[in-house]
């Protein structure tokens, strides 16, 4: 398994009140899988992603990337995992305004200290794959939301990560840009064999995934497999599941 999460718990302290956000989440993501996590606001989607990214420490439970137990890693080793084995796509893109599209894509490689001619070629290749070659010398302020998000996806892939973690990657986008981003994930999966773990509340975006994990109140409520189902049908199944959850 590429990613194994077992019995993950996390709570937040606000003043004197403690809020339990994750109450024992367990899931697995296989290599080359495209998995989405859905759920209503407050269900713990983003907290789960932040724990897997090691941005926030979990209270208990385990997260394994391949065979590596992330909780046991020191700060520098964690940084290396983030840099070499994980790729991130943030909701707000988090592109640096002072760098061009190409420089932003190269950033993880620069941080990792492994920028060669090959890396630059790969950045150019990623620009071609995601249709942003024409804007690669532009700055983030000069491009559209969809182009920013595709730049972010390309950046997530520059270091050949084992797993891409995406937090509401279509949250701020119009339908055209949403399609472009989802297409870029599919391209990444097919052309680059990427494994993708995406948090979303958008059933349209989730319907492209192989599997959708639905969270409710900090636990896994249901897991839906796409299998050979048509995308539109799978989206209907997702919407039915959401409705069912609302009725309970």
């Amino acid at each position: 398994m590429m990613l194994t999460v077992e019995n993950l718990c996390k709570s937040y302290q606000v003043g004197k009140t403690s809020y339990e956000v994750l109450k024992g989440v367990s899931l697995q993501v296989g290599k080359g899988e495209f998995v989405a996590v859905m759920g209503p606001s407050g269900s713990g989607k983003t907290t789960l992603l932040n724990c897997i990214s090691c941005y926030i420490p979990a209270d208990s439970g385990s997260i394994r990337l391949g065979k590596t137990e992330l909780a046991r890693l020191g700060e520098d080793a964690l940084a290396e995992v983030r840099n070499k084995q994980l790729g991130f796509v943030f909701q707000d893109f988090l592109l640096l305004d002072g760098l061009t599209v190409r420089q932003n894509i190269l950033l993880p490689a620069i941080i990792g200290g492994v920028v060669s001619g090959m890396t630059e070629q790969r950045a150019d290749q990623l620009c071609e794959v995601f249709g942003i070659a024409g804007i690669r010398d532009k700055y983030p302020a000069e491009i559209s939301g969809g182009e920013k998000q595709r730049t972010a996806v390309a950046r997530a892939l520059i270091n050949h990560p084992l797993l891409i973690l995406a937090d509401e990657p279509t949250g701020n986008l119009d339908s055209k840009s949403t399609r472009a981003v989802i297409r870029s994930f599919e391209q990444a999966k097919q052309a680059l064999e990427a494994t993708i773990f995406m948090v979303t509340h958008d059933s349209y975006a989730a319907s492209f995934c192989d599997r959708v994990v639905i969270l409710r109140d900090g636990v896994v409520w249901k897991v839906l497999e796409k299998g050979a189902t048509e995308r539109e049908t799978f989206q209907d199944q997702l919407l039915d599941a959401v409705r069912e959850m609302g009725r309970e």
Partner: protein
Amino acid sequence: MRHFSEVYALMRRRNKKQYALLSGCCFFSVLLITAYVCMMRAPTILNVLPEGGDSRKQVMMIFTLAVIGCAVFTTYASGLFFRQKSRETGVFLALGATRAQVRGELYRELGVISLGSCAAGALLGGPLAWVLWQVFRLCVVDTEEMRLVFDPNAYVLSLAFSAFVIAMMFFLGSRSVKRTNIIDIVQESHKSEPIRDVPRWYGPVGIGLLALGGFLGYMSSVFFISILHWYPPEGLTAVFYVPALIGLYMILLHTVVNGWNGKKKLYKDLIATSQMRFQGRQTVRNMLVMTLLIAGAYFGSFYTPMLGTGSMIEYDTRPVDYVYNFRADQDIPLEEEVLALAEEYGVTVTDFAAVPMLRLAVDGEDHIEEEGPMGTTWRAEYKEVLSTELFLSASGYEALTGEHVDLAGGEIRGVVDTEGSKLGFAPDKSLVTNYLTGEQLPVTSLEPLRYDSLFGRYVMNDADFAALGAGLTEEWRETQVCFNVENCEETYDFAKALFNEIVDHSTIEVAQFDGWDPVVRDQYLAEEGAYFLDRENCAEYGFTVIDYAQRDSSAFRMDWQYMPAFRILDRMDFVKTMAVFLILFVFVAVVCFAAVFVIAYTRCMTIALTNRKVYDDLRHLGASNAYLRRSIRGQVKRVFLVPALAGTGLIYAFYVMIMYFNGSPAGITPSEAAGLLANLAVVAAVSALIYGVYRLTLAQVCRALDIRR
């Protein structure tokens, strides 16, 4: 671009305004402190600010305020810098950079910024002080004593301040990288600062505490010394100002959180008030520091107009153009020589009068200091022979003033100024003694006479004057000279020449600090073996050593016991005499106001940064640019207006209180009222400057939030 350091360099180029602001603040603060220290430690200045004297304490106090101001504004500028940089740092960490990697680049960058700007500030601080000083000498006044000499030791303080700036920047930088939670760093620029509910009574109670603290702080030393007969340890009276500080904090808190409009403009100010409420804590702290700095800056700024106006009025209201006195054993120019000198300068002398005076011992209460478990206390002890005063005969007084005074035997009248001020003068005496013969005369003190030019003298009838003067040697006799001139305004050269003649003819025996008293001296010699106002002891006790060669120095002119009072000389030389004080206080005001502007600017930019999302949301809800502008103006205005109003009102009220209570009897004299009016002009000028900076800042904030006109 293949290396991390190249990314950093690129980001630096892209964000050069942020770097420029931080470097500029560091440079500016070190520059100001260095220039101030260079000036303050220059032997030129130290010569006119005696060790342990009030003026040196005042300059030190304001220097401390300036250091605090500069320290605060560099800290705020650094805070803003790291806040703006936090997103970049967060992205680096989120993408797998190690903290050591980010810290390394940041430290390298900080090293260059801090060392470069501090070194530049320290290097240019001296030349700046020198240039300012020369400009002042060139444009305003130039005297021999104003030749600026630097003390290399001054740079020790400058280096210490630079070390603080560098350490502070590295500390804040390290802290910003050290944050364990990357999510916090990524979102730091959007972090709100919640505030607890503030009851509405905070406003009125705050005002009460402020007034109470100001009154208690000022009056506590009077209470301790006059009522309890106890000299409180230094710093104790400062404790009594604490309620004022708490009151000020409560007022600012109430202003930021609740506002003073009640619910009248609830919806009109909704966004501005709500946003300020959520950033209340830090904003109120900023405002408090700004208020104190504005108050400090005004304290420095008020000194010059207050002193200038008061002095000018005093010179103008003197009833006589030329007044001087001298000891009878001195060969000082009298009528014949004065007239000859006047003729030489084409000056017409009128109303020349020279009358004898007696230096007689008087009774009174002495304050005997005692050391005890509570520190220094004092008790009053009546002494028949306490000190000496100068006595005129009634006919002598009439010759000088033209005013006839009827006095019976045993009656005396002190002379106070026309405003009736008795400050530093107790005209009620009951026993007068010829110190050499021991002849005593019990006296009754009548209502004081009022005549500015003879302030502090006593008048007795001619028979008593003759009887008590018998047996006094020349050292105990003096001559009082008064005369007028035609076209006084055009007699500066004559005045200067006569002043030089008087100084040239004075012997070393009368090179005494004002207040030197032969009777007090005898008592000190008998009890302690030394008198603190004797020439040889003056320096040790922090008093000016009177040096005839330094006759144009402010110290000489203010402190020589026989300093003549020539209206034209005093008026024309006022700026020259006070130059050192003027430039120091102007400098302090510049430092404090600069600190205020930087703090206000950084706070407003922080507010812009924090509110960016809110303003985007408002725009999505259909808010027009005019509405957004009005809303952000409400916040920026509060950051500027509240401390400006509070600081100005506070120090002005405090000044009025000082002026009211410092006289005897309490009250505002016409010259004090004129000084206070002059200070209002300063307030108007500075307020215009604050308004200008406010407009500039508002424009910057609008630009940062993409709010167009």
